[in-house]
């Protein structure tokens, strides 16, 4: 089952516009959407999550149109970690993770299934140690893991993450990336919007590079992250090499002189 968009166009108010986007995201891979500010990364992710309806073209899960799916069904299959790590009340970590079960809830209380999924999600993200602490008292790294656990608790087939590393220390960033990669290795589809090119090079199985609302390049890391592409899209002078294990290394030397 893949997640794909065909000739998708979107324009609305002040949000970044998209034009003629066609891309396919495969399950079992960590796909990364890259691009400069305003390129339309978050808008594309919102279309994939069914939060925004494209003006033209389609966004499909397998061969089902995402915008035509009933919201609760869509919510069960596609989980979204929204931008900004927004949380509003001082509820406990466990209560926050439990919100991920909302699409599955029937009647009043949580079922045994709900409790199992919540416990599994907290175990996978190593957040069970502070299940009863209010989220307002957690460090940035702990909060990020709790918010990811919230998405996992819904047991979606797809995990979409919009800038999940923003405002995190390097160590915490790697924690989150490791967790996302684990989920992909476990068979889920993972699509993340990232800003850091080094992380993309290191963790992505597949990259979609956006530029001014269109796909500039997509494919395997080495095909997309080339000195030429980075110069055109970001205006940076970058050096790419292979280390002794054959992994790609990226060194950003500076802005291109024009």
């Amino acid at each position: 089952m893949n997640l794909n968009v065909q000739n998708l166009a979107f324009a609305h108010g002040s949000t970044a516009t998209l034009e003629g986007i066609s891309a396919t995201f495969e399950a079992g891979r960590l796909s990364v959407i890259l691009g400069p500010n305003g390129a339309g990364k978050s808008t594309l992710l919102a279309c994939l999550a069914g939060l925004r309806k494209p003006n033209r073209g389609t966004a499909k899960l397998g061969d089902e149109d995402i915008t035509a799916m009933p919201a609760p069904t869509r919510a069960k299959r596609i989980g979204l970690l929204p931008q900004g790590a927004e949380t509003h009340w001082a509820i406990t970590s466990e209560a926050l993770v439990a919100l991920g079960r909302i699409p599955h809830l029937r009647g009043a209380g949580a079922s045994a299934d709900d409790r199992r999924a919540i416990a599994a999600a907290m175990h996978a993200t190593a957040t069970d140690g502070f299940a009863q602490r209010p989220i307002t008292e957690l460090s940035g790294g702990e909060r990020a893991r709790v918010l990811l656990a919230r998405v996992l608790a819904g047991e979606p087939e797809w995990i979409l993450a919009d800038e999940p590393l923003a405002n995190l220390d390097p160590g915490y960033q790697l924690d989150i990336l490791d967790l996302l990669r684990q989920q992909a290795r476990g068979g889920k589809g993972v699509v993340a919007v990232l800003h850091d090119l080094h992380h993309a090079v290191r963790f992505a199985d597949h990259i979609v590079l956006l530029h001014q609302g269109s796909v500039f390049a997509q494919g395997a890391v080495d095909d997309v992250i080339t000195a030429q592409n980075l110069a055109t899209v970001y205006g940076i002078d970058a050096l790419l090499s292979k280390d002794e294990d054959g992994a790609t290394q990226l060194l950003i030397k500076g802005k291109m002189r024009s």
Partner: protein
Amino acid sequence: MTSRFMTGLLLCLTLAAFLLSLMAGKVWIWPMSWAADNADGWIFLELRLPRALLGLCVGAALGLSGAVLQGYLRNPLADPTVLGVSASAALGGVLAIFLGINLVPFGLFGCAMIGAGASILLLLAIGRGGGPIGFILGGMVLSTLAGALTAFVISIAPNPFAASEIINWLMGALTDRLMEDVLTALPFMAIGALLLLTTGRALDALTLGENGAKSLGVDLFRLQWLIVLGVGLSVGASVAVSGVVGFVGLIVPHLIRSFYGEQPSRILVPSALGGAILTLTADSLVRLIPGPGEMRLGIAMAVLGAPFFLLLLLRYRRGPA
């Protein structure tokens, strides 16, 4: 378990406050004379019973509306008074009286409820995108505007007697309401409360922000209308029958949170009970203040509520709790 114990306690306190409201006053009326065929029995049936029932319903409606509005706007300072919903309902009611719509059955109620519902729609239009304080500022604008228009309508009222009648009603009190008025208001408040009680899960989802809630399958458009209708019915009917009794919806959810935690769905029923307790108790106490006449409940609540609001404001300025 603790929350179950707390809810039991709140239920007992609600009952106690209701009984206190039946008994307390310049004349104390003990349960043995409730059915008596004398002055005491008459006071009980015609004055105390409608007043206590009204206190119960108005308090519950305001407490619940406050809890739902705070959850919906993700702002602990939200409340029907602060947001201008009560003032708009009052404007609707005054217009109904001025235009004679109050002579049509349910005319006064209808106009007050439309005023309350419309003010929320206006508020959402004004405050959206203004951050946590945007809705509070929007509410201030609405409140001021509705107050000014209300004063204007009163000032051009042709009959000075009607004007003083309106002012009296606006100040907010549960006194001298007929059983008939109470029974008219009750179904509206009950339907409003039922609508509001269905919002719990969606309010919980909004803990993650609008995109988070939408991604969990919550229909925000439906939620908005549930709240406009629910608060419109509850607060509109409350204001129509008892004038503006302020700050119940601000104070109560805040106190309830310190016992139940901050999850929006968990404080809905307790806030309704807490609102009833606060309103019934305050309304019993204003009767016991010695001196000629009686202090208005609306005034007493404002004297209590305004410093409370200030306290919360100072606390949130220092950083979210």
